[in-house]
């Protein structure tokens, strides 16, 4: 009896130690990544990063101004296209088609698109947009990002609208409000914080996406915000600079990576705070 007892205790101790070890191992690796990123990124962070263009080969001065601006515009247009579409689709799933078979199918496909490889989406936009339009363009990049935004927003919109209590809708309908107004004036308003959270999370998701931009928006060494041509953007710039032989370029890549990470983390945190406010209300 005693032997069994002590062996059970021993096994338990070993497993507990392994779990603690796993937590320490995982967290230290992830901490290490952030530490390296800050250490290397902060070294190159200065005003010139935001005011100067990306450097030509061999040059030792330059910044990321055009890439930052390009990334901002590409991302904003991508979200501006993807988010409304995703919200409308999510609205259908949660409000009109709640018990339809079609909804189950769409939800299933949407969940798969949610984690589809982003490089495949780049290939899709290449065939669907870049080839017919006759060249790489910032607009194609935005569309590729929109394709990634849509499933995220569909999912969050549906989830948030399903949380809105039905008596609210019934009360509005009893006042004689048409269905579309019930949705727009009551359900959207009740779920507003959640809907914004979803859009912010989607923005954070695409802000650092690199693979789909590699052969849609391509890159540009100069200041260009004309969406019909190639547009400089931060992720592809980092991708090109990391593998370059120039020390200065690698430094810029670290700085760019730090800027992307900080903005993605900031978006995530804002979204989280908004989402929590909703819950405590």
């Amino acid at each position, binding site marked *: 009896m005693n032997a069994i007892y002590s062996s059970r205790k021993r096994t338990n101790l070993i497993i507990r130690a392994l779990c603690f070890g796993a937590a320490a191992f*995982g967290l230290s690796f992830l901490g290490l990544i952030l530490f390296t990123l800050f250490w290397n990124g902060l070294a190159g962070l200065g005003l010139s990063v935001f005011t100067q263009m990306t450097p030509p080969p061999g040059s030792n001065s330059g910044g990321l101004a055009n890439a930052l601006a390009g990334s901002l515009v590409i991302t904003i247009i991508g979200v501006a296209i993807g988010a409304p579409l995703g919200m409308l689709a999510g609205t259908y799933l949660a409000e009109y088609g709640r018990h339809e078979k079609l909804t189950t199918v769409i939800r299933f496909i949407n969940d798969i698109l949610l984690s589809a490889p982003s490089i495949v989406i780049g290939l899709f936009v*290449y065939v669907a947009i870049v080839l017919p339009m006759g060249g790489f363009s910032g607009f194609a990049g935005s569309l590729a990002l929109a394709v990634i935004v849509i499933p995220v927003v569909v999912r969050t919109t549906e989830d948030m609208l399903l949380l809105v209590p039905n008596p609210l809708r019934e009360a509005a309908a009893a006042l004689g409000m048409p269905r579309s107004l019930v949705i727009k004036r009551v359900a959207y308003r009740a779920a507003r914080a959640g809907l914004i959270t979803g859009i912010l999370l989607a923005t954070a998701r695409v802000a650092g996406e690199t693979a789909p931009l590699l052969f849609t928006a391509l890159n540009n060494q100069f200041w260009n915000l004309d969406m019909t041509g190639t547009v400089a953007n931060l992720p592809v710039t980092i991708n090109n600079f990391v593998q370059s032989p120039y020390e200065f370029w690698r430094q810029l890549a670290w700085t760019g990576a730090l800027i992307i990470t900080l903005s*993605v983390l900031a978006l995530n945190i804002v979204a989280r705070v908004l989402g929590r406010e909703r819950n405590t209300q």
Partner: protein
Amino acid sequence: MNNRLPSDARETGAQMTDFAMQASTTREAPVADRAQALKQFALSDKTFYWLTRVSAVSVLLLLGGIIISLTVGAWPAIQHFGLSFLTTQRWAPQIEPAPILGGLGPIYGTLVSSIIAMLIAVPVGLGIAIFLTELCPAWLRRPFGIAIELLAGIPSIIYGMWGFFVLAPFLADHFQPLLIATFEGVPVLGAIFGGPPSYLSLFNASVVLAIMILPFITAISRDVFMTVPPVLKESAYGIGCTTWEVVRSVVIPYTRVGVIGGVMLALGRALGETMAVTFIIGNSFRIQDSIFAPGTTISAAIASEFAESGGLHQSALFFLGLLLFVLTFFVLACARIMLMRLERQKGT
């Protein structure tokens, strides 16, 4: 559901609408315009309904569009190489006029790197999830959980960069020689862990991949573990079970389907991941015995060759992309079906 009301209800609805409207927007409108206002409502109602419906269906069209465009892009290669594409290892796009292209190398690399990554990340991720749900002091639970979720949001190119500059040199200088020395002379393992250590290798890429999917696995399995009713665990603790016994005999059996679903979701991510892998995998299409030798994955091959490709070469890359999409589609579909089963179980 039914968005039309029966006619008498619609009429009372109309009166009510009139009443509601008088109070707000159409105060100045004469009563004679009521019919017109109602017609306008009906129109905007219908418009909004169809707008949302078309948007919802466009999600399906998106999937169809992806499959069709990949197939269109891959068609010349499918016609030219056929099924032998899957069994040919040689990748020689420079040969004129007919390049020899086979996808075996990238397919092998994709599968092997994902498997190694899962072998590392699944035990560690499950360990962290158990730590978070059973062992962690309550005050640490929230911040720890949030940190994991934030890390899951970091773009993959950051992981790739860190792997390229920090992890790959470390592994090649310290970790790989250790494994090579340990397994030298052992029949099979000697070949797998053989050869000179290298900065660019399948193994290094797998480790970066593992670190990248670790937060995913942890977050999902934690959520899944949370679905176990506390009463079940408490009764097990109450009859004197140790933590491990509770996890093994209560938590894991209860959540098995969900855990497998979560792991497959992470596998789907690992299979299609591009930027974390491209920098350090070495982009070599040759399959070698040693995992310390350079290799390539489907996504890395597309990312590094697509911009300079044309003709049959580009089409072959599309073929690879199509294969990747089909592969991840099935893995993700299985994952979703399993997670859905867990949800249903929770509901009953």
